[in-house]
């Protein structure tokens, strides 16, 4: 057998479709750049749409494993999808490469899961620490009510409170939420120094627009949070109100490394728009698969591949990253960034770096 099959399960339709598209694009780009053979084997991608619905993920994964006999399953736009596939990865003994979902527990659900995206704990704890140190004492939180949102909220609170900060208002908003007006009004009435926000990438735009409309920026209330809210994918569209928003995140399209500049340029050339952190997760995910295959010499035994992945270290467009050999989770730099205008476009400009951040969600347990 001289092909390696990767079953890529992504939300290509539905509300999360832009996640799926970015990851698919990034993988395409990588394979264009690096060729589609590795360790003497041809890499074949089989893409399945799960619309971010876990049972579809599971059926897709099962079909891929049983019928297509794939050697990897990869992708997973949302946490429940990644979790749904976990038992299958264990049963089939093949690696599950999580490229987007960001809840801490995921990697604990199967010894065959590795992650190349991030965990919300990583960015939330960092921004929590940063906030107290930078004169933010009172914070109101607004988070989407689902696992990643709750992770973000809890880890932020822990660190923020530990530093002496006070959470004056806590609002969880439904995942599918069209209008933020009433929540924002609540935030405004609580008069905090800043709002800690986590909403899934697509909704960041809505949030920021309404934040500005309601005059929270003028009232001196800052926005802080993990970087989802100022996702590069949408950032440039949000208007000047976002200027000054400070977030902690793994990737900015403005990351000043040469590698990233090339990556952004190539991505823009191929697909017409800027890559966001989702794209990077996919790019690194496929890279990890390539590297593991190289290391096993093309052997597709799942256990060997997982072993090969553990401890991998490489330079990504986001900066230096590695796979923690114990938790199979990603270790990466978290950057504090501020939205600024660069050449007439809005970017998250990095101004502080926390190096080699592990998933704090796990070490706590």
């Amino acid at each position, binding site marked *: 057998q001289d092909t390696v099959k990767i079953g890529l399960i992504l939300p290509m*339709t*539905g*509300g999360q*479709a*832009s996640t799926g*598209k970015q990851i698919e694009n990034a993988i395409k780009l990588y394979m264009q750049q690096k060729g589609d053979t590795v360790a003497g084997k041809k890499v074949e991608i089989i893409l399945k749409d799960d619309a971010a619905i876990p049972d579809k993920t599971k059926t897709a994964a099962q079909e891929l494993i049983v019928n297509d006999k794939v050697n990897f399953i990869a992708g997973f736009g949302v946490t429940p999808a990644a979790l749904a596939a976990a038992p299958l990865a264990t049963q089939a003994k093949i690696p599950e490469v999580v490229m987007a979902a960001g809840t801490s527990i995921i990697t604990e659900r199967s010894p065959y899961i590795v992650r190349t995206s991030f965990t919300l704990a990583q960015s939330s704890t960092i921004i929590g620490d940063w906030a107290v140190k930078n004169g933010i004492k009172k914070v109101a939180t607004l988070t989407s*009510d689902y696992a990643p949102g709750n992770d973000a909220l809890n880890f932020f609170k822990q660190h923020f409170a530990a530093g002496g900060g006070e959470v004056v208002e806590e*609002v*969880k*908003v*439904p995942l*599918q939420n*069209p*209008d933020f*007006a*009433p*929540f924002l*009004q*609540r935030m405004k*009435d609580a008069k905090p120094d800043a709002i800690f926000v986590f909403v899934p990438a*697509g*909704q960041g*735009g*809505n949030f920021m*627009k*309404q934040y*500005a*409309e*309601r*005059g929270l920026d*003028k009232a001196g209330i800052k926005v802080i949070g993990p970087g989802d809210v100022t996702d590069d*994918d*949408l950032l440039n*569209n*949000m*208007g000047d109100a976002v200027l000054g928003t400070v977030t902690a995140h793994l990737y900015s399209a403005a990351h000043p490394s040469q590698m990233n500049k090339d990556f952004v340029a190539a991505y823009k050339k191929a697909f017409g*728009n800027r890559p966001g952190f989702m794209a990077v997760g996919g790019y690194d995910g496929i890279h990890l698969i390539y590297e593991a295959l190289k290391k096993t010499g093309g052997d597709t035994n799942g256990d060997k591949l997982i072993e090969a992945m553990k401890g991998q270290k490489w330079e990504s467009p986001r900066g230096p990253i590695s796979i923690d050999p114990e938790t199979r989770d990603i270790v990466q730099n978290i950057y504090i960034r501020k939205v600024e205008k660069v050449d007439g476009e809005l970017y998250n400009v990095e101004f502080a770096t926390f190096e080699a951040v592990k998933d704090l969600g796990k070490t706590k347990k």
Partner: protein
Amino acid sequence: MTAILTNLFDGVAYGMLLFVLACGLAVTLGLMNFVNLAHGAFAMAGGYICMVLVNRMGWPFFAALPLAFVSSAAIGIALERTLYRHLYARSHLDQVLFTIGLTFMSVAAVDYIQGSSRVFINLPAALQGQFDLFGVGIGRYRLMIIVICGLLTIALQMVLAKTRFGSRLRAAVDDPRAASGLGINVPQVFAFTFAFGCGLAGLGGALSAEILGLDPYFPLKFMIYFLIVVTVGGSSSITGPFLASLLLGIGDVAGKYYVPKMGPFVIYTIMIVILIWRPNGLFGRTAAR
């Protein structure tokens, strides 16, 4: 006190927005008795057209709004003449099947053309931000929505209730065969009404982009809201859906503000309670169909 007023204002604006979005459906579903689940697709069309005009071609927002109306109406009339008109006499289930099909197609097509990321329309500075009125924060954009929608509602109600066109339309719906035998040009009445409904949807789509965001899944995401407005409002007039929109808008905003944990309970509960209390909606005609 000011919090209450601010919330009331936001609720009214949100409700009005729902109303413009849904009132085209109130016309096609309530008056023409045609289940057009693709309604949101016309709204999306209006939104994207406005977005392209403003963001890409640099049109002023206020010039793009009427064009969103006109072009959605034009798409509407084209589809009505070619496809929809064959379906007036069909069962509701066929209509559901057909219009869901159209919705799927529109979703995928827009995804293909515009990508799946959410887009926004660049607003003129005059519409951004809030001003203070006796301590109540009034959003400029929301105020504009209220004004436009208010005028629209009055105009619509006049046309439907007071003019002969309204009664000819209802006659054509009640019994197309008899209506045509009695001198009503049924296809024309239908085409015009349908196009008008689509135009309204397009306008609503353009107006809502700022608040609800615009992406290819718009027609599916908001389908439920449109249906709620129309059923809760009842189908006998425009007033019903209008009040229903306000009720839902205010209820939703107040619910989120005062009991944020309850999430979507508020809207659904309001809906179920009203429908159990008045199965034909607030302004339904009891001795109906």
